[in-house]
């Protein structure tokens, strides 16, 4: 139609950073590295790595809300916990093995997210944060109080089958499930639906007047995020061989927010980096400090005050400064 070639629609995302080819190589290398990890790491570090993988999925699922749609949910742990309880309840009541329970978890967590989201998307901003928090605590209380079904605050035991018991096998299982889930989430963020969520975050009013029923899209994002959090939770229960009500508690809900902010919310990989920072910091603090919350709180305070782009953001900024100076 026109003589001159059209400019590409997508700006080479982070064009300053990396080409598509380099990215593919890096991601591919990382994946291979992750699959080789259990053959070099000791068992205790392997458990830490499983923890990281689960938290990474939890954080990325959350960032679909905060980073992509601009929805500040503070009750995301509810769906994480529900995923864990889906596995636990199916195992205890119907003797369903955990890997089948895991398949059911996104549907259960997503269905409850649909029920909660139906109310919650009626409001926005801080109001939405309070409401999701309140509903999350409601679900926590129900799980705590419904002894007959959930075991109350004793929790519910979960026993993985023999082949999943060795740390190496469970690691490989979790790695595969996490990678498949992250790939699905990546597709969603790059889809027309994901673009619509970006648009709603950018300018809600304009999004409405290009024909987007914004509440429905927010509800959709809430359900998808809840479903993937459910998968993360479903992998948590067999790891601890237990589902605890504390998985739904609001202090657990703060964790994906922290991870996303620590890593940076406007990139897909940000929350994954945030999860690595979070899991590692947490491990160090709980090992060496008698007052882990205090230390952790102070670190969070300092990050919020002095590193607005998160740890990863600060590293990237420093890297860019270095590169500019080198030129």
């Amino acid at each position, binding site marked *: 139609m026109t003589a001159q070639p059209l400019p590409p629609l997508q700006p080479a995302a982070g064009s300053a950073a990396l080409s598509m080819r380099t990215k593919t190589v890096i991601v591919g290398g990382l994946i291979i590295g992750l699959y080789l990890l259990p053959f070099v790491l000791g068992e205790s570090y392997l458990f830490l790595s499983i923890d990281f993988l689960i938290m990474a999925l939890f954080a990325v699922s959350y960032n679909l809300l*905060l980073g992509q749609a601009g929805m*500040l949910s*503070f009750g995301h742990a509810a769906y994480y916990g529900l995923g864990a309880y889906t596995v636990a309840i199916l195992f205890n009541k119907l003797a369903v093995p955990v890997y089948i329970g895991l398949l059911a978890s996104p549907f259960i967590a997503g269905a409850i997210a649909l029920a909660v989201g139906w*109310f919650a998307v*009626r*409001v926005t*901003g*801080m*109001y939405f*944060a*309070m*409401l999701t*928090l*309140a*509903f999350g*605590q*409601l679900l926590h*209380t*129900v799980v*705590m*109080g*419904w*002894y007959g079904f959930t075991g*109350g605050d004793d929790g519910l035991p979960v026993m993985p089958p023999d082949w999943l018991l060795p740390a190496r096998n469970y690691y490989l299982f979790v790695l595969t499930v996490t990678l498949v889930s992250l790939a699905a989430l990546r597709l969603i963020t790059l889809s027309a639906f994901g673009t619509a969520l970006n648009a709603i975050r950018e300018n809600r009013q304009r999004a409405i007047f290009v024909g987007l029923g914004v509440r429905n899209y927010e509800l959709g994002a809430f359900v998808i995020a809840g479903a993937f959090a459910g998968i993360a939770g479903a992998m948590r229960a067999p790891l601890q061989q237990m589902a605890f009500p504390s998985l739904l508690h*609001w*202090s657990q809900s*703060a964790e994906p*927010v*922290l991870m996303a*902010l620590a890593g940076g919310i406007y990139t897909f990989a940000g929350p994954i980096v945030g999860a690595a920072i979070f899991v590692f910091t947490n491990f160090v603090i709980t090992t060496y400090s008698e*007052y*882990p*919350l*205090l230390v*952790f*709180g*102070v670190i*969070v*305070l300092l990050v*919020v*005050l002095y590193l*607005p782009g998160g740890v990863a953001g600060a590293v990237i900024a420093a890297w860019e400064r270095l590169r500019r100076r080198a030129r």
Partner: protein
Amino acid sequence: MMDEILIQALSGLSRGMVLFVVASGLTLIFGTMRIANFAHGSFYMLAAFLTYSVATMVGDRTWGFLAALCLAPPIVAGVGALIEWGLLKRIATRPHQYQLILTYAITLIVADGIKMLWGSDYRTVARPAGLDGAITILDMPFPTYNAMLILVGVLIAVGLHLLLTRTRFGKTIRAAVADGEMIGALGVNVQRLFTGVFALGAGLAGLGGVLAAPVGSVSLGIDSSIIIESFAVIIIGGVGNVMGALIGAVLIGVVHAVGILFVPKLAIAFVFIALCAVLLIRPQGLLGRNT
């Protein structure tokens, strides 16, 4: 059975009054500064522990409680002012999530700080002399202290109403709640207003903590239960509206207390059913403004 429900409702009313005092502070902070302050429950918990320490130091239970009543709320208000002035002010222009996370970090620090200073044991605070007995209502005993709480709650509601309608400070707060952007244009020192409101709100949380200390247990973890209920109160009542907070708190207190009679473990669910009903009918809260 009917009498039992009535007494239980009355007991819920007294609990609701404590909740009102705490939530009124939260709603003023939210309404003025548009911040959902997670640390509010920490202020409440801090005041409860301060009450324990002051009462123990003074020795006499009546004078001890009165001393705590005079000391703890201003101390907590001071802590609140410091947090606003030293921390929140610095990130006032950043997106909501940073403010939320900052107040969340404060809850962690306060929780472990209290654990460091007071340990993790349960503490109890004796009721002042004269308020430790019971009065008879419908041939049933009702704790005098709880009856006093209802009275005090009403007095504080009236006091807050006068503060908001009769004083310059109060009128400025109401203007800020109604239209946050206008307030700077009116020549108000927004910085001082925010610090003042945050201190006032923290002080109210502290007052709630003192009042609750002799009826509940003084222990770690009371911060998170009160903050969730306070959020529910201000969603039901409408942001920035003190009378809405009164209605919401009483509603939650009574519904919860009566619910306990029927489903002890899941009574909180009734609170959320009320919350959902309000959201469906009036998303802006019962007395909230339609924007």
